[in-house]
């Protein structure tokens, strides 16, 4: 008798399980528009004269069309203040990501690595903890020649480390060719 009861239960348990067994394909929720950086723009302002901007842009993201890279052209023996902005040009209107970097300045660091005749960059701005940030800086060109500047945006770097620019995650890493006349 006990067996009978148990097995009846067993059998109905199966029926219950059967009715809860179907997973289905969900219709796709639209992807949350995750932010994207497509463009790096550096503006060089000399002590006297007009400011010039140069862009590195890959508007359609990885793959597809190749990125469009402008060559930075500077005058020799000149001091410039530089200002770097990050944009998302895949959207309309264009989104300015720089504002968010400023808001989360403690978590970001802009690094500049130069080669050839390109002069070193001095970072002049700071984050909320008084550590370097990198959106603003100065350079002083010397002799004419060619070179390059590699601009990197690091996320959560260790700003106290010996080489902060090799820590953290790389959000942006672009290289501009530089010509000094």
């Amino acid at each position: 008798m006990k067996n009978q009861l148990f097995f009846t239960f067993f059998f109905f348990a199966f029926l219950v399980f059967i009715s809860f067994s179907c997973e289905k394909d969900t219709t796709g929720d639209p992807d949350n528009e995750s932010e994207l950086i497509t463009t790096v723009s550096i503006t060089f302002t000399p002590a006297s004269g007009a400011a010039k901007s140069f862009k590195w842009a890959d508007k359609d993201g990885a793959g597809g069309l190749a990125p469009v890279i402008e060559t930075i052209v500077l005058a020799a023996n000149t001091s410039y203040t530089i200002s770097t902005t990050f944009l998302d040009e895949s959207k309309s209107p264009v989104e300015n990501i720089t504002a968010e970097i400023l808001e989360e300045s403690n978590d970001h660091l802009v690094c500049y690595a130069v080669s050839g005749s390109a002069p070193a960059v001095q970072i002049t701005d700071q984050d909320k903890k008084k550590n370097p940030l990198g959106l603003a800086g100065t350079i002083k060109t010397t002799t004419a020649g060619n070179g390059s500047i590699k601009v990197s945006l690091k996320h959560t770097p260790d700003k106290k480390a010996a080489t902060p620019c090799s820590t953290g995650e790389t959000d942006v890493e672009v290289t501009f060719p530089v010509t000094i006349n």
Partner: protein
Amino acid sequence: MSFSKIIGCKYGCFLGIILLFSNYLLGQELHSSCLLKLQMAVVDPQGKPLAYVNVGVLGQSLGGSTNEEGILLFKNLCKDSYSFQFSRIGWEAYEITFLIENDTSIQIVLRESGIMLDKITVLGDGDKLGKNTIKEVLDLESLRSTMGFGLAESLKQLPGVQTLNTGASISKPIIQGLHSNRVLILQNGVRQEGQQWGSEHAPEIDPFLSTKIQVIKGAGSIRYGGDALGGIILVEPPALRREKGLDGEVHLQGMSNGKLGILSGQLNGNHSFGNLPVSGRIQGTLKNGGNLHTPDYFMNNTGVREENFSWMLGTEKNNLNSTFFYSRYFSILGILKDAHIGNLTDLTDAIERGRPLSDGAFFREIGRPQQQILHEFFQWKNIIDLENDGHLEINLSRQFNRRKEFDAHRNFGTLPNSFENPNILFEITTYRGEVDLEHNWNQDFHGHIGIALMQQVNTTDRGSLIPDYSQWTGGVYYTLKYKKPASLWEFEGGIRYDRNRLRIDDVNPKLQDFRENQYQGFSGTLSSVFHFSNVGFLVFQTGSSWRTPHVSELFSDGVHHGSASYEKGNPYLVPERALNNSIHFEWQEGKFKIQSTAYYNWINKYIFLSPKKEAVLTIRGAFPAFNYSQTNVNIAGLDGNMTFSMNKHWDFTFQAAMVKGRNVTANDYLIYMPANKMQLITTYYLNAKDNETHSFFRTQLTHVARQRSVPAAFDYALPPEGYLRLDIEFLTHIKNKFFPDIELGVALNNATNTRYREYLNRFRYFIQEPGRNLVVRLRIPFGHS
């Protein structure tokens, strides 16, 4: 299907008894020529005689059936070793080999077959394949000791199987150098359809639901598909309970590395509702683990969770046997944070370090990056017995697989804390219908004819690795086996035709030209078995198979964060075509047992990722770029093992595998081929070796060589050094009042805490393999009749 009958046993037995007496009276001299007698008494586990048991002798035209007293007498046997095969409908087939030196009387005990249908005497799909397919069965004891590590790691114990790993928690089987889409995995006879194309997508099957896993090498079985270029893995659940009552088992496992715990259980029942016998099972597994540990540091974020559940329900009435099977697999896998690389610069830094930045710590929480996989499988199988003609099998199934991947990256912005929005979401739904008719032309010819249809829809709701697609496939096959009872040869051939329609459902304008794709082709196998003696046989097998390019190979376009590379598909790829040739050898005599497989396979239009000279420039920096291309390759190899049973207590096994792949078109080595591997296993049995409840102490020494046969400029780093690894295992059975037999296993894997890396582990650039691991496991069966 029966062997030649001797004269009704009553007469023969009487004669037999007289002859036995006369031999005894006349002394030993008569035994020098072929005049030995063997009396067999076949009984059931309760000692009751079993009549009408067919007895055959391997490789000879001897045989007969037991009489009503369960007795069969053999006369005029030579002083030799004989292999006897016992079969009776409804009872488990049994084979025994022994040496006849004197007149012998022997009692054989048979057990009832698990499958309810009377006419079938085999246990599952795999057994119907017979010797003609080159297969290796993972014995139950080895399966139980490694189930906790997942399907691929269990199979690794077989000589021809290696694994492709992504970290320590993701493992895929490699057979004859091939994996992913080239290896079919079948759950209860149905092809597993998930995202198996990805090298970091592990098979979504819980090994705890199975008691038998077999590997079929090469294009051995046309019945399951024409595209198994590497082989087929059959995962079979145990048959449903036949006798009334309840039984079950519980598994408890704990592992020190990762502080992993596993609880798995199974309950089987059988009851008659009026005239209808109903049998059922429920089974489930829970797994929970935290960060793994290498000899020098923790691997942060390598925890794992698994929640699996399955049930089976079956009944039989007259000639129909019907079963339902449902399984649900859900797992959350943590991916090593340090392996998700930003760009090439970060990758180069990581490779130079060769280890994570920090030593890490132990924690159970699984953060980003992580994978969440759900696989649901439902099947309805019907077997209709057609009396002497064989049987008809109708198999309908539905599978649903949902894969979510959460990156540690975002294009920009802070990562959300919750796991509501995955970065990648794939959902694939597959319906399948198969009909197979097993038909016996006469006692020597045995054939199968069948048709298999599949419809599949894949949607990519997040991420853009592969587009949405729908796929329809249809295949028809015919296989024929020829075996004359008295002959030393068996032959089998099979032919199959498949059509495949692939439709891209994505609205991306770049894909519109490739919206409709059609493929078709034939595949076939031919094999023969030669029983060169009572104690050994050879299998010769050749086959041609083909595989359609997968959507990922045709249309990938993007950065693959898991491998810090940019992968681009090629919509002009054509199907691969392989020609597989193998020779398999088995021999068992006295204290030695040997098995070995040698193979030489050609694959034309083999699809693989070929590096481009120029990196792809993205806002994140440069990524090495790879294009899917085709080339002609050949892969050859040799694997096998040899066991020496020195005496009642000691066993020594030597196992080795070697694979050589060549990219013929490029005249260079083929990338990612397994390195040479050798194992020496020593087992000391504390008590009767042949007893199912034996205890043993075992050491396993594994040597994997450095892979030197690699093409230049294909990889980020050279293959790692070779290594030596020691594993120790102790197994015992405890009898007690409450449970008849508790199995206790204690294993120490990587006992010497060796530091090593595996060539086929995609994370080898970043971390070592796990260090020492103490595994304690209990298996507690219970039940009553």
